[in-house]
């Protein structure tokens, strides 16, 4: 029954490559702007190590949801949690994830708005950015996962090539001596920083939702791992470039180091002012990320309420996300603190619950055999 249902809610199919591209954008859209600042604050010139370690945690999360997906083919996490834990407990777990996805949407909207008002348009109200972004996202969720994935196919070219152009042009400002001394960090602070959701590639958990819609679900793990390594690798290289340009002591001073970094580019007084590329990365990436997560939340809500269509819940969820984005944080300092820290709830969300579901699956199989 549930198989039929998921097909009804999402008629489209995406290729494994498209899924990987979605994951890359979900990871890079926000992390490239936010991660360098707080990781360098906490770890100095070793910040990039945390990002590499975070990749590992991301792959761990991915492997958990991948095996869950393989054990329950054609089902999303909202469906197999109900099969495993019973109707009500399963729905509760589903709700937790829906709330989480919605939370991500809200945070991304707020970050987007705050970035735009702080760096480019100081007189424009925050709501202009939030509203336009969310209505665009709602519209693309109406169109479905396949459309979002196809749209992402050209947006990812914009985003990634912008990042490469920025890195290439900044080469003249690099001084690799700034990266020394290497490996002077203790393990515990490194571990703690790597567990911050932005560093830990937590977006891999979204594969628990989109895996049934892959044309070849078996490839999900390979593609997801490649995407995680690529995306976090790019962030690590970005941090290295920042450190090589500014050194660990100056990198922590600007609010958005990558923007300052791009503003410092000046090749022969001709090639300069590439802020617009940061805007491209940010606006295009954030749009896809918002759409993607709003889609995951909407699909989840439609599935646990046994709706026949996804449409009725999209706009209400979008509006909740907007309201939440305004009410969640009073000012940019609260937002910054929240984004740069971790807590046990996050650990259970991206590790505990999938592991528990996997164990239940395993026990059930044992039990059925025995």
């Amino acid at each position, binding site marked *: 029954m549930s198989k039929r249902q998921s097909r009804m809610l999402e008629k489209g199919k995406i290729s494994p490559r498209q899924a990987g591209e979605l994951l890359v954008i979900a990871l890079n859209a926000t992390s490239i702007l936010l991660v360098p600042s707080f990781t360098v604050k906490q770890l100095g010139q070793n910040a990039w190590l945390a990002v590499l370690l975070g990749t590992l945690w991301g792959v761990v999360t991915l492997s958990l949801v991948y095996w869950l997906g393989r054990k329950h083919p054609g089902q999303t996490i909202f469906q197999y949690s109900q099969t495993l834990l019973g109707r009500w407990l399963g729905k509760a777990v589903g709700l937790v994830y829906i709330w989480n996805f919605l939370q991500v949407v809200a945070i991304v909207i707020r970050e987007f708005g705050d970035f735009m008002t702080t760096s480019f*348009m100081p007189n424009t109200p925050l709501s202009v950015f939030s509203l336009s972004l969310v209505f665009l996202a709602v519209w693309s969720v109406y169109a479905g996962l396949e459309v979002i994935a196809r749209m992402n196919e050209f947006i990812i070219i914009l985003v990634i090539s912008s990042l490469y152009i920025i890195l290439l042009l900044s080469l003249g400002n690099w001084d690799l001596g700034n990266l020394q*001394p290497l490996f002077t960090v203790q393990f515990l602070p490194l571990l703690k920083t790597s567990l911050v959701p932005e560093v830990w590639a937590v977006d891999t958990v979204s594969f628990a939702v989109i895996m049934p819609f892959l044309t070849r679900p078996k490839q999900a793990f390979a593609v997801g791992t490649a995407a995680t390594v690529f995306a976090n690798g790019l962030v690590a290289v970005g941090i290295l470039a920042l450190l090589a340009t500014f050194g660990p*002591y*100056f990198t922590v001073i600007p609010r958005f180091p990558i923007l300052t970094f791009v503003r*410092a580019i000046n090749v022969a007084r001709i090639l300069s002012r590439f802020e617009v590329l940061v805007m491209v990365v940010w606006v295009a990436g954030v749009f896809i990320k918002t759409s993607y997560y709003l889609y995951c939340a909407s699909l989840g809500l439609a599935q646990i309420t046994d709706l026949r269509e996804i449409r009725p819940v999209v706009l209400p969820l979008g509006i909740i996300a907007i309201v939440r984005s305004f009410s969640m944080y009073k000012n940019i300092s609260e937002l910054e603190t929240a984004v740069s820290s971790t807590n046990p709830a996050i650990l259970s969300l991206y590790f505990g619950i999938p592991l528990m579901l996997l164990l239940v699956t395993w026990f059930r199989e044992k039990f059925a055999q025995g």
Partner: protein
Amino acid sequence: MEKQIILLCLLLLCLNLFAAGCWDHIEIEELALVRTIAIDYLPGRRAPYLVTFAISLPSDVVGGEGGGGGAEPTQLFSGVGATLNLALRQASLNLSRRVFLSHAEVIVIGEEMAKHGLAHVFDFILRSPQIRLNSHLVFTKGLAQQILTTTERLEVGITEEIIGMIEQSRYLPETEPLPAYRFLQKVVTPGQEAYSALLLKSPPLEEVIPGLEAEQKPGGEEEGGGGGSGGSGQEGESSGGGEKAAEVLTMTGVAAFRDDKLAGLLDATETRGFQWFLGKTSRTYLAIPDPEQPEESITLLVSRVQAKIKPQIKNGQVSFSVEVITEGDIRSQTAASKLNTPEMINKINSANAAVIKKEMEKSLRKMQQLQVDLVGFGTILHRHEPKLFSRLQDNWSEQFSRLKVEIVVTSDVRRTGLQSNPARPRP
């Protein structure tokens, strides 16, 4: 289908609303494009910050020399305030356009401001979304405002004149203007101190050329390693003019900072002296004594410089060894010696090495006396011995002033120019 087309048209119309740029849109004709900001501190006042800025009028810049009686290409505005923002606001009262700082390429800072400490200036630069961190910081003696009132000589507008000098300084190790972010990086990084170029308005000659007495004629003999080849050339030109010498801007030497406060000024030779440590002295001219006739000089063009600084720790005592490898070409000589023999070139090499070493030692003494580690010995120690440095970090300036540095210079003269033998009358 038709319905969709109508919807699309409506959507495109709606997009128009956003394309204009929402709340923050502003037409370029309404902007006053600030090109240079001069910041001064007037001690003892309630509103101590004096901001002066040079505004370029785009049409005049583009028009160039075409228009005869048009407005000056640069207009100056100034205001005072308790903070820089308030000073800018006060200046805005005199303007018919909105002040726009994104195109500022030079920030000139006055002597009192530098002595008072630059914390507020840094905050102002970093917090504003408009000011660009790759604009250059330069310092001056006295008021920064007077730099902007100088009449430009070669370029359209005083900003272009200063930017030209900044560009030109790449070939002149006698001065070193830094972009704001580099300067800030040096301020915040432990184990090094910040510096940036000194921009002087019509300085007396003896300030530009060390060792030159005031009554001596311009173009007189230079002493030791030979001083500011950058600024001094313009002097002679202007003194021949009329009764009133034209105003001249000279970029020479650097202002050295301890933390964010001005610690002292380094002249052209001293500046080149510490640039040797950083290997940034290629394309410099050096005057070295002729090995055969010590009162005559040979000019060398240094074409390549490599510097290696290594910390050495013995019984917990830190010292540094510096190895400088230079290559150069002979450019001229005042006598008519035969330079083109291997023996002679060896002699020139050792004389050259001695001159460079002397220059470096002199500069190092000056830095140690001012307690400013412009080279970044501390940072280098941090990279090699992080644990040791973390103990010394707190009073590094003092540690630096007692630091032992061993300097080894190797010189290699590669070529001697197009001339093979001296053109001297046969005996």
